[in-house]
């Protein structure tokens, strides 16, 4: 299998505090990789490094084949990103938002119209094309944000707690979209607080105190920790944490 993310001994220190402490893992193409951890465990810092936003103190990582230290510009072109906070422009219409992200990710001009059409059809938003995003319900906004994040057909998409505040039905639909995306070969790197969502991932890593405490398929993790669900697995690992959640 092709490896799209390779991380070796990646460390980020702020002064003497090591937010991320020598983590190593690999993510395969087309995989849904769940990146779990309590608040303050170092998830966000690690993810920021992988997106080329933050330079590591030591260690190395390749994302989509590019070095995060020397080629962050190439990485940015080849990944999609959807953040914790809802990240479309509320005062722009659906079409204008799509047009803007297509523009900054340099999607070829003649591709934009057909892709937009397809996206709107799939989300059932054809009639909302010219509505302002703020008029859409939250669930639709999240689905639209995800579709926009993969609009330029990135190799990897990073999702930072994408389903925060969304109802269970919509979360379910959201995950269907994620599966669809992986079918077309996109690798999904996702952080979440919902342990039922962790079950949907192909593999899950759990960070505790800046280190990766466990990494395996949900089924293997449950077996290893003798737990009924991911919630228990997470709890057993996280209760030993010395860092306080913030």
């Amino acid at each position, binding site marked *: 299998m092709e490896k799209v993310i390779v991380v070796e001994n990646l460390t980020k220190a702020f002064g003497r505090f090591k937010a991320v402490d020598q983590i190593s893992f690999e993510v395969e193409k087309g995989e849904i990789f769940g990146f779990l951890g309590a608040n303050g465990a170092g998830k966000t810092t690690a993810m920021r490094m992988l*997106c*080329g*936003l*933050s*330079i590591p103190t030591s260690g190395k990582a390749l994302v989509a084949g590019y070095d995060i230290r020397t080629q962050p*510009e190439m990485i*940015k*072109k080849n*990944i999609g*990103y*959807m*953040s*914790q*906070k*809802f*990240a*479309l*422009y*509320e*005062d*722009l219409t659906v079409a*204008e938002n799509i*047009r*803007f*992200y*297509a*523009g*900054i*990710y*340099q999607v070829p*001009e003649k591709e934009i119209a057909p892709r937009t059409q397809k996206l709107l059809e799939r989300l059932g938003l054809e009639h909302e094309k010219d509505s*302002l995003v703020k008029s859409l319900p939250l669930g639709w906004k999240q689905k639209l944000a995800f579709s926009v994040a993969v609009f330029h057909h990135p190799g990897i998409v*990073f999702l930072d707690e994408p389903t925060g505040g969304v109802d269970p039905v919509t979360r379910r639909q959201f995950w269907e979209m994620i599966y669809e995306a992986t079918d077309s070969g996109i690798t999904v790197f996702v952080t979440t607080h919902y342990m039922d969502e962790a079950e949907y991932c192909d593999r899950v890593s759990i960070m505790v105190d800046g280190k990766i405490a466990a990494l395996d398929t949900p089924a293997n993790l449950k077996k290893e920790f003798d737990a009924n669900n991911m919630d228990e697995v997470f709890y057993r690992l996280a209760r030993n944490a010395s860092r306080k959640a913030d």
Partner: protein
Amino acid sequence: MRYFTAWRVMHPEKPIEMKQFISFVRKEFHHIFRDRTTMAILLILPVLMLLLFGYAINTEVKNSKIAVYDPSNDTYTRAIIEKMQASEYFSVVKMLKNEQEMSEQFKSGEVKMVIAFSENFHENLLHSGDAQIALIADATDPNSAKSVVNYATAIIAGYQMESQQLQQIPFQIDTQIKLLYNPQMKGAYNFVPGVMGMILMLICAMMTSISIAREKEMGTMEVLLVSPVKPAMLIIAKAIPYFFISLINLTTILLISVFILGVPVAGSLLWLLVLSLVYIFVNLSLGLVISSVVNNQQTALLISGMVLMLPVIMLSGMMFPVENMPVFFQWISQLIPAKWYIIGVKKIMIKGLGFSAIMPQLAVLSGMAVLLIAISIKKFKYRLE
């Protein structure tokens, strides 16, 4: 053409980046056009401010109420009183009978000034060539008191000159007042440059900083930073719409001041534009610096409102002359871009001076622009870490 092809070969990715840039600028315009209220405010604000300063906040003196104490009541004093009455500046509302009434008038606040003649005014003037007029003004508002006294002095002096020619009366005082550049003492000559300095700063600095702070607040900044957009492009794209709006405002202000307020552009329009462009750059970069230190719109608004607006109003020389301030504040005023701009605009618009006269102002403003842009780029990169 040849250069162009060569350039394309050297930078094959440039045209694509241009598209990226255009879609960014288009998005910024969408933001502005969609927010009708803000846009209307941005476009109408200069008009309102000019008209407000032009008509409501009027430092010119017209029809000031005065009272007269005239114990001599001779031809000469009556003539002076008539002159006062005839001028558009004064209206004589009361003739006082004694000196006690004078202080009562001031206490009630009915009159701005009392003109008191000495006794036997005409005779004294004829025989000893020395007679007194006292101008007593209510100085609770020092600016208007000063102008009232100035006008009165000018009228009396004028009358003396006239009568000297007619009757060969020897005269004691030869007051000659000559007001350069602004002979009618029009307030507009002072506040038009001031309003220009204020409006351009408000729109460029405040709006740019707010618009970047909004991206941070909404979480869209994060997405932009992860995208291939270069920070410099982001910054420039943010500034462009406000650059255009300030050009529109500049045009509105100049049209209103020339055609409605009657303040001409005495000097070169070209240099006025150059000066304004440099000033606009200073303020855009000021906005960028502010936005790099704040994380939400409210703070951006507060900082640009309090930290920028107040000094501009107080210390730029727009309202109060810088020369009269304590040395400490005079030093601070040197740091205020608006101060330099307002001086430059006055030189061109009112005094009709050319490039050589505004060179120091241009130099200082350019220096400020370079410094601020450098700071904002450095700060912005730092935030990326």
